[in-house]
């Protein structure tokens, strides 16, 4: 059985290896930056016969405080980098099988890098697209 909640939690565990980054496997009501939020966007069924392959498309929202714009931009630059200790892609792909929950995963891209307004607060944010194959 595909345990979607367990997959989200394991992705959050991988993200949690980034020092100082809070993680949320579910979309929270209140944002407490810097935080990475795992959100399930869509599921493609029947990639193989007998439901042999299901593709889950996740968006990982990364939100940082914009209290100091330069600091916020530098922090975001580290998160969107393809490699490095603060790289979201590297952290998520550090265990591509998510403790044997899935067949494979890949962080495809990062988009919408820039300002984000939530509850009258300005943040810096980025959206990572990740495909998980089950």
């Amino acid at each position: 059985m595909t345990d979607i909640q367990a997959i989200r939690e394991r992705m959050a565990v991988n993200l949690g290896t980034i020092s100082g980054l809070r993680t949320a496997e579910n979309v929270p009501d209140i944002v407490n930056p810097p935080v990475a939020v795992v959100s399930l966007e869509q599921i493609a069924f029947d990639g193989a016969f007998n439901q042999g392959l299901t593709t889950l498309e996740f968006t990982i929202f990364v939100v940082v405080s914009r209290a100091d714009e330069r600091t916020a931009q530098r922090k975001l630059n580290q998160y969107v980098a393809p490699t490095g200790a603060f790289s979201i892609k590297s952290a998520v792909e550090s265990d591509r099988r998510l403790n044997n929950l899935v067949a494979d995963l890949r962080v495809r891209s990062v988009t919408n890098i820039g300002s984000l307004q939530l509850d009258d607060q300005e943040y810096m944010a980025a959206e990572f697209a990740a495909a998980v194959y089950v």
Partner: protein
Amino acid sequence: MAKYVVTSQKVTVNGTDVSDACARAELVLNAAEVETTDFGSAGWTEVVGGLKSGQLTLDFHSDFGAGGVSELLQDLVGTIGTFVVIANGTAASATTPEYTTTALINSFTPVAGAVGDLATFSVTFPTTGEVSYGTA
């Protein structure tokens, strides 16, 4: 009888169920065209059916894990394998016929795919001998 969407065809190779690694199956049956045109054909060509043949095409997701389809096929190149394909189901019935054939495993692509793609490969095998089908 009803039209159907392909979701659950069953494919086995030498008795091993590889359905959950298979994304497409196509079994084509052919009969050779044997020309019988003569002076009595009134300006038209005439043909009759000759020898029958078949071709099985399968698209797989690569998997080198223990018991995975890649591991299975790489050791079978050059051999005759037994293939069973059940259309639209996991058990043979009147509406989900089961086709059984032997085929020459004459090719295998162990490595394929571009960066970022899901690793897949496609094979096409010529059948050898009869292609039979059952409904039970």
